[in-house]
């Protein structure tokens, strides 16, 4: 209990940030027209590819001889990169449909 309290007090601003980010996440999405559900899902998915940064950090910190870590890290980078690049590209393609008109 005490550790939790302490954690809470020391990371207070971080927690504010998390709470506000969650609210922002809700807020930003809450009025989306149904048309955009799929592209939005896709776009959000691309953002979740941010996990790739973890893989990059992992590799950078790895011992150059620790091939296990390097291998796993690189696998992570590949997976993350597919998610990121593919995600943004596929979203863009979906959204291309929408540009046609609009007075």
């Amino acid at each position, binding site marked *: 209990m005490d550790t939790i309290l302490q954690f809470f007090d020391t990371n207070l601003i971080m927690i504010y940030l998390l709470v506000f980010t969650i609210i922002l996440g*809700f807020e930003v*999405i809450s009025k989306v027209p149904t048309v955009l559900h799929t*592209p939005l*899902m896709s*776009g959000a998915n691309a*953002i979740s590819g941010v*996990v790739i940064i973890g893989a990059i950090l992992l*590799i950078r910190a790895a011992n150059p001889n620790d091939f296990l870590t390097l291998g796993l890290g690189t696998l992570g980078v590949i997976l993350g990169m597919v998610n990121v*690049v593919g995600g943004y590209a596929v979203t863009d393609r979906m959204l291309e449909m929408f540009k046609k008109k609009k007075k």
Partner: protein
Amino acid sequence: MLGSIVNLAYLIGATSFVWGLRQLSTPDTARKGNLLAAFGMGIAIFATMILPMTGVANNYPWIIGGMLVGGIIGFFAAKKVQMTAMPQMVSIFNGLGGACAVVLAMTELVHYYDRTATLSSGQLFIVLTTLLIGAIAFTGSMLAFAKLQGLVWDSQVTLPKHHIVNYILLAATIGLTAYVYMGGVGLGMTMAIGLMVLSLVYGFSFVAPIGGADMPVVISLLNSFTGLSAAAAGLIYDNNIMVVGGILVGAAGVILTVLMCEAMNRSLFNVLIGGFGGGAAAAIGADGDQVAKTVTINDAAIQLYYSQSVMIVPGYGLAVAQAQKVVKELDDLLSSNGVDVKYAIHPVAGRMPGHMNVLLAEADVPYPKLLDLEDANNAIPNTDMVVIIGANDVVNPAALDEPSSPIYGMPVLNVWEAKHVIVMKRSMSPGYAGIQNQLFFHDKNKMLFGDAKDSLQKLVSEIKTL
């Protein structure tokens, strides 16, 4: 100095994510929003590359190699995919994101158990969470992909009493996680691998009973999971943008999932309890073993809005619903957006000669927009969308191809020659002639059930939001 720049870059990246998502939720700015988010990601990745770290080997070639491989795969996969297969693709991408989180967590655990690194109890908790959530997102997404792609039948991946099996699996997974957490470094890698496998199985089993039609909802939820796992991973590396980006996607994903359920008039619980999903939606239009597909107001609105040409086929149902003025409104709305709207008037539509003429004149539809049977049938093959409003007999293909039908030989509107057809009526019941209509089960056709005036009004409101 460089550290500050990286920090600033991260801040910009995180803000881009937020603002990008925000823009993504309005059709006008959606594309810009996606680009903005991509820009944020680019900046974040670049910043991570140059982030000052003391005494590390960097191993840039590995990173760049991995990025190239992943980038190329992702890019081409995205470019090649069929428009109709988009949701599958998103599902795969999402699964890979989850897999990445799993890989990260496993790497940490490897180091932890071979004691090349230590983890505080808080850190261990975070790593296990990352593993658990990432794994569920991974296999869940893969199964969702397979279902959408038609690679598996729903029934093949369901056990009897599947949701009870699921509860047990979930309990086991959480129990094992707790055990590993408590067990400490002595427990060894095997247990960790066991946990990973169990999590992967649970992810699969979680999605298994959910019907194919509900897959988009599931993908959105799993997307939220991937976001959370990224955030958890961010805590491992104490990296702000991962945390912020992950949490953002996590929250957005949850809301989006709820919205998607709402749009389908279902509760999230209802979707997740599984099994009913696919069935319920399709049941409305069933006739023996034939199933008429339905369309949501939303999809209908998009299809209409982005058509080049729309042919409206009014019938007796339009008259009964007294929907003529709303039809005109729809027409005006579409026309003002550059859609070419025409009306196909079948000679016997309605219940008296000229019935449709009377109604449409009342709504002030200009005469030149009204095509008679012959002109309409000539125009239909070049029409993107046919919207049938409470007509039935006059668009019944039995008149052409079913010699036993009482209307065989009567000329009808060959609406099925258009690219897409939407039929608005209240039920599957037949029209004046009392005969079933095969059009409703046609490949190109979707039903929009409900009173015609009602449906049209909803369509109009929906199109106005586009």
